[in-house]
């Protein structure tokens, strides 16, 4: 897993064996699934807060509740 590179350059694993590249693909899929579902939202937030040197970083629990409040206050699902 590990932090996702923001700049999407292809990392240099072109010559690696099939198993390694399979592992990379699976781990990317897993990471994608975590981001899609919101599982990784807190890590993304913490990374961003650190980058911008925010003084008070919310705990995982605080962030979860705050994020839900925002998400479900606007149209998030369609017909």
């Amino acid at each position: 897993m590990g932090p996702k590179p923001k700049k999407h350059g292809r990392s240099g694993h072109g010559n690696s064996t099939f198993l390694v590249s399979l592992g990379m693909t699976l781990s990317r899929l897993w990471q994608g699934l975590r981001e899609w579902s919101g599982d990784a939202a807190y890590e993304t937030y913490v990374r961003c807060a650190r980058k911008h040197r925010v003084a008070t970083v919310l705990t995982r629990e605080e962030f979860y509740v705050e994020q839900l409040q925002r998400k479900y206050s606007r149209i998030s699902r369609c017909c």
Partner: protein
Amino acid sequence: MKHLLGIVAWVAVAAVGALALATIAWHRGEPISATWFVLAAVCTYLVAYRLYSAFLAAKVLALDNTRATPAERRDDGRDFVPTNKWVLFGHHFAAIAGPGPLVGPTLAAQFGYLPGTLWLIAGAAFAGCVQDFVILFCSIRRDGKTLGEMAKDEVSKRGGTIAQLAVLAIMIILLGVVALVIVNALKSSPWATFTLAMTIPIALLLGVYLRFLRPGRVIEASVIGVALVMFAVVAGQWVADAPAWAAKFTLGGVTLAFALIAYGFAASALPVWLLLAPRDYLSAFIKAGAIFSLAAGILLVRPHVLMPPLTRFVDGNGPVFAGKIFPFCFITIACGAISGFHSLISSGTTPKMIQREGHARFIGYGAMLLESFVGVMAMVAACAMTPGVYFAINSPATVVGATPDLAAATISSWGYPLTADTMAALAHSVGEQTLWNRAGGAPSLAVGMAHIFSRTIGGERLLSIWYHFAIMFEALFILTVLDAGTRVGRFMVQELLGRVWKPIGRMNWYPAIVLSSGLIVAAWGYFLYQGVVDPLGGINSLWPLFGISNQLLAAVALVVATSILLKMGKLKWIWVTLAPMTWLVVITMTASYQKIFSANPRIGFLSYANALGAQIAAGKIPAAKIGEMQRVMFNQRLDAAVTAVLAVMFLVLLVEAVIDWHAILARGKEAKLHETAYVATQWAEGD
């Protein structure tokens, strides 16, 4: 050489697509394989994406990857989060895909498979995808502004208010009609009712888990939740088999309607982490899983489409809903071809998460193609059953007759042979007491899906499990629309009322929460109740009303998009939004006119009310039923008024926009565009 190979490959894709389209269009006689539908759709999507969306991206919108997106400029880890293109595609798709593209095509199948399928494919390529893509682009260029804000900036101040009111109105009608779909799927079905009822304690359990035990661990909680829901699907059978329990969960339409209204109120007024959010997580996983399984099932089983290309009901006398192909096929299909609601997602969350402008093509245009494909699959699933069975499930008793023998005779007389025994055997095989008169699309789609799934895994033995899995899947994500929509509607009501009396606008003040939640559930609950008691089945009145309001919202979005393109100096390409907008104006205005004024009581709201009035006056209605009929008359007049108000609101916006376009084009008025200033990206090229 490579270039040449590319051209050859694309010509081949286009040729296969054309062949498949020609096959489904001109095929007569023997049932046709669903493979042709998949090929026609997929090849057209590929060509449309490769050519038309590339043209939109390069010539019309001139997407600029050197320009920093809102996600890069404002990167706050909360709303503005730069997100991988594929992840955002999934996110956007999960947001736009709702019950609409499943229900609409299922209902439109009464015209035969051809009109609906062609409109799903062509409408998406030239209208729906264009709307989603252009609005997404416009919102990216405006820091993620909403459709209402863009209408205010780019069309007129009144335009903004109209867009806001239109959104609230369509939301209320939408919630009423989707709730009716659930009611029709659950009534007299202890198995389905038990399963859906169980999702509430399961969601509460997950809510507590995600809030206190393992905050934010969405995947593990969802895995537990999905397992529990699957268990509830199986356990539903035990409930249905135990007479004492079955009696408790065998509910009528009105009871179910009030249960849903109470649920909507609770979901809106309770803390969001407790019920709404965990159900949404659960539904997202099950939705994605079920849609993939349906695609895989159709490809593996390759069912034959038994419905003819065109039925006799193109004449407007269809039993599911009345009205001719033009305009009602387009109004009924709605979301699978173009959905106004998507413009709210395209100008909501997605523009704040997009990494590069260039991704807007894949996400805006591409996700809508996938949505259209979901619609085509729903059409295939509905048309893969015997036409007689399809009409038996979807027609109200007042049209076909109240007893199975009578109804089977009516449907057979239309040329779609059916016996009462067939329906009894089918109901038994899917574990239901009856499948007659269940308009709304969900049960017939579930029968279609169950047949496809059971031919992949389990055979006849698992048919009833698959049927209830499909019902649960549809009902679960309709409930998600219902609770999320009620909550957002509550915020809209609070905001509007807050302008009159400030305290109501306070989002944390409990009396305001209760009052506004009550108002919003009362509003959609009213439409739901009127649908449940409507002798014509409710769907006949409410689905067209929903379709009209949805397509009007799409027209609003395309008016805004056209204004923006004009101001960007793209007069030469203005037809890309102007043409679909004009088409939507034509179909929504024709449909609104017919729904209000048609002399046919099954189409016109007013003539239906008058016909009932005449029956009462002539003494044909028993005294005990007069009060009920008078309520139905009032409801029909209310529906006519709602349709008229929506149409007039839209026309006001359209006239204001046209005056503005005229001023820019003919009188040289300065075209002031409200884009945010260009900021160069700090990110390296790549991706």
